[in-house]
């Protein structure tokens, strides 16, 4: 049996991102990871504890924040909803085993992808593409926000190293990729 080739939604733009990178901006699509949507009651301590035990870190309860590390992270999407990204495919089943009662784990890996923006110009690219206030005095490391990016929905994440991740829908990936290539041209 031949191996199945795994291609991320923007694999066809990798070269274009590479050509553009350097100078003020570095764009690349992240390797494929699992995306899980988790629903449950934040005031249910047994749910929160079981999720924490499985993930190794607590689910964020402060709006517009995320927790975790490079391999696995949980993003606040709403008072009873989180996005979990992880490179450990066992997490999905582990959550289903550990959680009890009223909850939902939905695998949405095929529906999303992650674009990383690095470099001094990434803030300006965000600012000219979105209506949200990304000024560093307001949008800090550990923050994430669901807003519009070039009129498409996006979850924007500010990582510990100061770079940004855009978590976007697969169906908008090509459009946002092309928007980024155009928006980044003046900085490359």
């Amino acid at each position, binding site marked *: 049996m031949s191996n199945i080739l795994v291609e991320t939604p923007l694999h066809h733009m990798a070269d274009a991102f590479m050509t553009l990178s350097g100078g003020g901006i570095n764009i690349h699509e992240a390797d494929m990871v699992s995306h899980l949507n988790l629903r449950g009651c934040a005031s249910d301590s047994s749910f929160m504890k079981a999720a924490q035990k499985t993930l190794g870190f607590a689910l964020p309860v402060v*709006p*517009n924040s995320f927790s975790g590390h490079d391999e696995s992270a949980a993003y606040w*999407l*709403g*008072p009873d*909803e989180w996005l979990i990204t992880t490179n450990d495919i066992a997490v999905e089943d582990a959550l289903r085993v550990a959680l009890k009662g009223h909850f939902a784990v939905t695998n949405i890996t095929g529906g999303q992808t992650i674009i990383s923006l690095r470099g001094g110009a990434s803030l300006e690219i965000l600012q000219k593409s979105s*209506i*949200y206030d990304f000024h560093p005095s307001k949008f800090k490391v550990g923050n994430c*926000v*669901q*807003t*519009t990016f070039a009129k498409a*929905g996006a979850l924007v994440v500010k990582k510990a190293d100061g770079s940004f991740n855009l978590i976007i829908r697969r169906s908008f990936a090509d459009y946002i990729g092309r928007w980024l290539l155009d928006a980044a041209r003046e900085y490359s």
Partner: protein
Amino acid sequence: MLKIHCPYCDEQREEEEFSYSGEAHISRPLDPGALSDADWADYLFFRKNTRGWHHEMWQHSAGCRRYFNVTRHTVTYEIFESYPMGTTPKALPKGDAR
């Protein structure tokens, strides 16, 4: 452009992130089968169309995707408050909007 406070995200956000969902605090009849056609039509289609302070629903569609309520003045567009679903609004401001 309105700036709307989402009570779940706890932030002021641009109107572009929201969708309007009409008059708030309309409760579904407990026994729709017992209603006359006129009463059912009234529940489904007829709204107060208030001139002045108005309790209305908004959805934070590009954000947390939750519905919540907003008290807004339909003439001046001033927003008095936003509050989560299932909670009661504060007493209305006296008179017209500032």
